[in-house]
């Protein structure tokens, strides 16, 4: 069960950009700005002195919240923290004027200050951002209130707000990842569904490992997860209510294999693969009624479908040309146009939440890559290369991709990695055991 968090936003002006994506209005915010689309980025130096504890009970949390904010920002590769040991000023009063000269002296271009108070189970976090070299505040101060067990989410929300103010884009820190947790040797692997914060904290298991489970996918609001389970002996699609951890089978035809499900943006329809007579085609299903529509009817393999964010199109993988390639067709089916034309085999295409790019898995000359291309197939860019990289998933703001990397050999192991869409900042995502098939949630409300 997810703890409740109520966000009380002091500034209405800033409340909207915090929860929606890509605000153009913020682009005119001021001189302090990271343009993520630029080529090489020098990380922006910033300082975040420990948030002030305004009540005795807040002492530990104030420090922990500050460290989570810093970890979020540092983890983007876009920000570089000026360590506390270099600070000249200390912040002892949240409302006192900032000594900009002291922060300029340590070359902190941005400064984040905050205050934390705890009353019983009630936690309040206030923060301010400053553009140090412009001698002014970076937007208005914000306040988040909730319960103490939601402290991590509040830290992520502060970091999202800072990220948003400086990049002009929505953040991705207050989000979760559902994935397959893996234990055991390669020839006896046990898999179960797990969910965690995007940074690997707060892991919870959603199924046991009695039945093989694969490829969970979030609903557009993050309240449900689709996945493939072998509970019946055949791969079938299940839907799980994340809050209640209740699940039910969606496709229950005896002996028919269905897999690779993904929600439509309306959260009501599911597109998936069904294999009958050895032939795999694409179908949609209305979750409420169970009524099905066949989208493709070809002797080739059609699988790994993913909707465009507006729900009008589907990108998928097919070997109709002789090898697996990417195709786009209308969400209602019909003729598809091939979009991948590079060397090698393409699979698992995923439409970005911004609608501008398609992430994919590519296999060429014995190596696997995660890549992105425009939706017409142009400007292909490979972001990674390894023995086995597959299954990309997008951060809610379309800036970062998480995927599975499996090492080779008898002791091969799967772990989650993330990389930004310019191919920078490749790094492992911390998980307790082996992990595969990540799916990133939308930003939480």
């Amino acid at each position: 069960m997810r703890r409740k968090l109520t966000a009380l936003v002091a500034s209405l002006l800033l409340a909207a950009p915090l929860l929606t994506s890509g605000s153009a209005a913020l682009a005119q915010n001021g001189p302090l700005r990271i343009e993520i689309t630029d080529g090489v980025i020098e990380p922006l130096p910033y300082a975040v002195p420990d948030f002030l504890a305004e009540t005795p009970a807040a002492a530990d949390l104030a420090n922990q919240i500050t460290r989570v904010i810093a970890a979020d920002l540092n983890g983007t590769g876009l920000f570089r923290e000026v360590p506390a040991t270099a600070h000249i000023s200390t912040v002892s009063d949240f409302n006192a004027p900032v000594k900009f000269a002291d922060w300029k002296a340590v070359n902190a271009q941005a400064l984040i200050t905050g205050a934390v108070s705890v009353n019983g189970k009630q936690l309040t976090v206030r923060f301010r951002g400053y553009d140090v070299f412009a001698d002014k505040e970076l937007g208005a101060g914000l306040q988040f209130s909730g319960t103490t067990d939601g402290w991590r989410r509040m830290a992520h929300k502060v970091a999202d707000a800072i990220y948003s103010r400086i990049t002009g884009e929505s953040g991705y820190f207050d989000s979760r990842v559902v994935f397959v947790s893996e234990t055991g040797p390669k020839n006896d692997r046990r898999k179960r569904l797990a969910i965690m914060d995007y940074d690997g904290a707060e892991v919870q298991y959603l199924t046991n490992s009695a039945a093989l489970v694969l490829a969970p996918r979030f609903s557009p609001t993050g309240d449900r997860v689709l996945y493939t389970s072998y509970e019946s002996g055949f791969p079938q699609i299940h839907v799980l209510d994340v809050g209640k951890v209740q699940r039910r089978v969606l496709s229950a035809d005896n002996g028919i294999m269905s897999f690779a499900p993904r929600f439509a943006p309306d959260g009501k329809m599911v597109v998936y693969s069904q294999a009958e007579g050895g032939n795999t085609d694409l179908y949609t299903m209305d979750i409420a009624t169970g009524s099905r529509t066949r989208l493709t009817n070809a002797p080739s393999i059609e699988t790994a479908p993913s909707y465009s964010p507006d729900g009008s199109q589907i990108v998928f993988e097919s070997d109709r040309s002789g090898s697996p390639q990417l195709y786009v067709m209308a969400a209602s089916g019909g003729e598809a146009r091939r979009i991948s034309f590079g060397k090698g085999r393409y699979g698992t295409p995923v439409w970005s939440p911004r609608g501008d790019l398609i992430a994919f898995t590519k296999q060429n000359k014995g190596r696997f890559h995660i890549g992105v291309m425009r939706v017409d197939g142009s400007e292909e860019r490979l972001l990674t290369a390894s023995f086995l990289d597959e299954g990309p998933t997008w951060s809610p703001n379309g800036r970062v991709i998480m995927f599975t990397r499996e090492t080779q050999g008898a002791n091969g192991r799967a772990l989650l990695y993330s990389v930004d869409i310019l191919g920078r900042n490749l790094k492992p995502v911390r998980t307790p055991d082996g992990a595969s098939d990540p799916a990133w949630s939308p930003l939480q409300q």
Partner: protein
Amino acid sequence: MSGFKKAFVLVAALGLAACSNTSWNDAGAGGAGGSGTAGSNLDPASPAYFQETIGDRVLFLIDQSTLNPEAEAILQGQARWLTSNSDYVVTIQGHADEQGTREYNLALGARRANSAREYLISQGVAGSRIQVVSYGKERPLEICSAESCYAKNRRAVTVLAGGLTG
């Protein structure tokens, strides 16, 4: 007994094929054609005979789901056994090696399992007795990341269920 002779020929043929692989010592896993010997004293109506002497699995080339002559010979043996042991139903499990994405391999495993199913049907086994399931790359038998292992993982395995002696 002709069944024995057939099995012997089969094992010999696969033994030859295996010479190109350096690690053909797959007794535990059965392997294509099984690890049983022509001199086996297993009860010909037993599942063990089916698995070890006739051979419970057929192998495929990379990305392929077509049956080669060796695979067809094994399936002919399976079909004869299933015809004379009509209490059994089977599930054919299709598998892929680890090269390829999870989704594509699930679909490929389904193709392979279905190839074996269609062949058994062509040999007179009732389709109602044969279910198929694909595990894609989820259940490798061999765990090295080399063709010697991949070749054994690209398989369709006929698993018996039911039966009076099963």
